[in-house]
């Protein structure tokens, strides 16, 4: 191993997480996307164009793919012409295959006539992604895994595209949701004997895109108890908060990773956390996950303040109280902007370290341009940040949102006062 340097990261698995940089290329064998690749059900022409541009540049290439699909591909990949995985199409050279399920934003709909199509079908027919997990039957779901073999490692990938939680719950209760098991899989349903022989064991990954946890009403989410215990790892899409380090399931014996979104689509607390993707290695029946911070994410911070707790504001009946409030809030906003900008630096530094950029070589370089090197699409004006200041103003007059916001137009993309 040709180590350049050793870098330690502090995080919950700190003692296990050492980045060692080497010159070798450690590219991923494949990409797994757990839904909502597109924000709109009918993405605009521009969005489709840019998406195809990006996938073309990164996923087509001369290198051979190092694994095989040994399941019935016609069942797995229905929307391709030949019914084969994209890297086996003789007329294409794919070296980074993407496997994707649809989310609630980009689910299949009837688009005139009788064809039911999702935006992902367009990418699939162009051999840019392998669209899995589409189940068209109304009253039952039968999830047939994509069986992947690399050397002695065998992975069964179950894809289950988003559907309305109520419908899924109904089917689940009626035992209409079935997960087919690979032929020759030794493990029995439920308890059963655990097969220690790696040769015959499948590592089972379930990708789904549904509401998680309770709090949304009992029938409005997927409960962990509904997921079969023979799964090893669940990749949970739809929830935007990044909880990528696999959690042990509260109910079952499997683990759950929730990568979270790569962009904040709402100004909620969960979205203000740093965004990561995960590098998942599976070897035999073992796995490990390395979180990698994303740098191309607009910095976003959120803070709550209560005017009543601010002693400095003085008497409520003061005729100049409105000006005082405005001044106070302006200061808070300035602080938030400063925090968000500091966060950019930290995120960029993390991203640089994780991707093996030797910071010592570039002591004076602009981190932002270092981490976005080689990217065609970059964050425009990353110094324009997202902030949200929630003001509890009971007892005081509220501030005119628009007039107040206009003071910061140069610095912030958006701020919300509630």
């Amino acid at each position, binding site marked *: 191993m040709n180590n350049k340097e050793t870098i330690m990261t502090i995080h919950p698995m700190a003692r296990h997480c050492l980045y060692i940089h080497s010159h070798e290329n450690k590219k991923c064998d494949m990409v*797994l996307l757990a839904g909502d690749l597109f924000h709109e059900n009918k993405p605009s022409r521009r969005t489709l164009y840019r998406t195809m541009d990006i996938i073309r540049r990164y996923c087509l290439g001369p290198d051979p793919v190092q694994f095989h699909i040994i399941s019935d591909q016609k069942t797995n990949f229905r929307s391709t012409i030949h019914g084969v995985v994209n890297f086996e199409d003789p007329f294409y050279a794919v070296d980074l295959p993407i496997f994707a399920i649809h989310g609630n934003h980009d689910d299949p709909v009837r688009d005139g006539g009788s064809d039911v199509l999702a935006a992902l079908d367009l990418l699939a027919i162009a051999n840019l992604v392998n669209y899995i997990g589409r189940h068209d039957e109304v009253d039952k779901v039968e999830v047939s895994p994509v069986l992947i073999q690399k050397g002695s490692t065998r992975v069964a990938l179950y894809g289950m595209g988003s559907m309305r939680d109520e419908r899924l719950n109904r089917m689940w209760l009626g035992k209409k949701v079935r997960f087919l098991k690979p032929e020759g899989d030794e493990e029995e349903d439920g308890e059963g004997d655990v097969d220690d022989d790696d040769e015959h064991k499948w590592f089972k990954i379930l990708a789904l895109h549904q509401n998680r946890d309770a709090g949304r009403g009992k029938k409005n989410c997927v409960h962990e108890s509904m997921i079969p215990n023979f799964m090893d790892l669940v990749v949970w899409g739809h929830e935007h908060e990044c909880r990528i380090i696999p959690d042990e399931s509260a109910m079952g014996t499997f683990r759950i990773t929730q990568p979270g979104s*790569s962009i904040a689509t709402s100004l909620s607390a969960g979205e203000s956390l740093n965004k990561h993707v995960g*590098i998942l*290695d599976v070897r035999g029946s073992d796995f490990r996950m390395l979180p990698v911070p994303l740098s*191309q994410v607009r910095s976003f911070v959120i803070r709550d303040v209560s005017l009543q707790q601010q002693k400095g504001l003085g008497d409520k009946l003061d005729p100049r109280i409105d000006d005082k409030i405005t001044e106070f809030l302006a200061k808070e906003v300035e602080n938030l902007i400063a925090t968000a900008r500091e966060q950019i630096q930290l995120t960029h530094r993390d991203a640089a370290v994780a991707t093996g950029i030797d910071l010592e070589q570039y002591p004076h370089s602009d981190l932002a341009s270092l981490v976005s090197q080689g990217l065609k699409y970059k964050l425009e004006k990353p110094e324009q940040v997202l902030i949200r200041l929630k003001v509890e103003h009971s007892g005081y007059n509220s501030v005119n949102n628009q007039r107040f916001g206009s003071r910061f137009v140069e610095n912030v993309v958006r701020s919300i006062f509630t």
Partner: protein
Amino acid sequence: MYLSTPMSIEIDDDYEVGEEEVSNVSGPNIQITEPIDNDIDEDTLRIMVSTDNHLGFEEKDPIRGNDSFAAFEEVLSLAKRFKVCISLIPFIHFL
């Protein structure tokens, strides 16, 4: 040697993976296998895991219009050019 800045995962107080996770790792029902030297061997399947990329989000915004595409391109570029070997992160084995 660098000590990188903490990732958000441990900054977040609500997310209690910290202690718990570490204790789970050495818990009774799993076992950590020895780190191996040959990092990504012919028996290791490496998967980039990402979700909810929301391509096209706020695409008409003059400043934020690029955001979703920039992040997605970064994801794929990491998948393609990932140069970090993580051999010291042990595999987790289910017993």
